[in-house]
């Protein structure tokens, strides 16, 4: 269980305490940013237990690289970058695996576990979003995830993905085109 006293602590303090080996402080960081990481990882890989493993890896990587965090950028941006890198690596790994050992199509390598939705409408909406995202090329999918699920601006997206603003804008319009084609079929 996470210590309640850290609920209102500044993130810089949490980072310092975590670096000093304070388990509760790092637990608070995990609590604060797990939803954000879930949106990126599950948005990119689908809602499955494997995505959960990548989510855990994100925070483990964060813990071991906390000493490199200088506080120049927001902690959320730093975590987001780790999440994006690990997710893209996982996609590459899966692509290699599936090209060698499976006949599955690209968009079939992402699992989707139907959660319990209170209405049929919500379930349908969730399925549409999942299918639309998984039908996209990963380099477009990451941009759509950043904007549609995380609510980042184009500038923030460019900063997180380490891409020039122009590249993000052009990928955005190509992603929109791809999405239209996918959504027509759904």
């Amino acid at each position, binding site marked *: *269980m*996470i210590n309640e006293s850290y609920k209102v602590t500044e993130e810089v303090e949490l980072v310092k305490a975590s670096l000093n080996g304070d*388990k509760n402080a*790092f*637990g608070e960081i*995990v*609590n604060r940013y*797990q*939803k954000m*990481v*879930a*949106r990126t*990882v*599950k*948005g990119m890989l689908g*809602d499955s237990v494997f995505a*959960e493993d990548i*989510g*855990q890896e994100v*925070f*483990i990587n964060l*813990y071991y690289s906390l000493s490199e965090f200088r506080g120049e950028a927001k902690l959320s941006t730093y975590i987001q970058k780790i999440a994006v890198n690990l997710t893209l690596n996982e996609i590459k790994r899966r692509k290699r695996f599936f090209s060698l050992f499976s006949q599955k199509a690209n968009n079939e390598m992402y699992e989707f576990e139907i959660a319990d*939705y*209170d*209405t049929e*409408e*919500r*379930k*349908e*909406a*969730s399925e*549409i*979003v999942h299918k*639309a995202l998984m039908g996209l090329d990963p380099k477009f999918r990451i941009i*759509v995830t950043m*904007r*549609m*699920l*995380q*609510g*980042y*601006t*184009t500038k923030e997206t460019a900063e997180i993905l380490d891409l020039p603003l122009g590249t993000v*804008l052009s990928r*955005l*319009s190509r*992603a*929109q085109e791809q*999405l*239209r084609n996918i*959504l027509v079929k*759904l």
Partner: protein
Amino acid sequence: MNKSEIKKLIISSLNADADTVEVSGKLEKEGISYNFSKNFSDRVLNKLFSAVLTVNREVEFVKYMNFAFYRIALTGVAAIIVLLISIFLREGSFSFNSFLGLSDNYDESIVCLLTGNM
């Protein structure tokens, strides 16, 4: 929100001038939210700190091994020094023969030993 409205919302989120915070908020209201399972943070902490513990144990083992190595090496060096001193005191030199324990009257001693005529 019906199917076509959801599709429109998805497409509009990619407009360069879209209010992305508003779009993601609307999607979340429609049940499009991603979360990790319950006790996610506890699992991360368990994984993390049990791994740290394993690493610490490994480091301690290496430390003990280093310490044991130094003790064995020092004991060995001390034994060699004692041996050299005793050889020098007995033989009076560090010649090859003195290391082998053979004195100058080597031939006679061997003959005596072999014939039993002491």
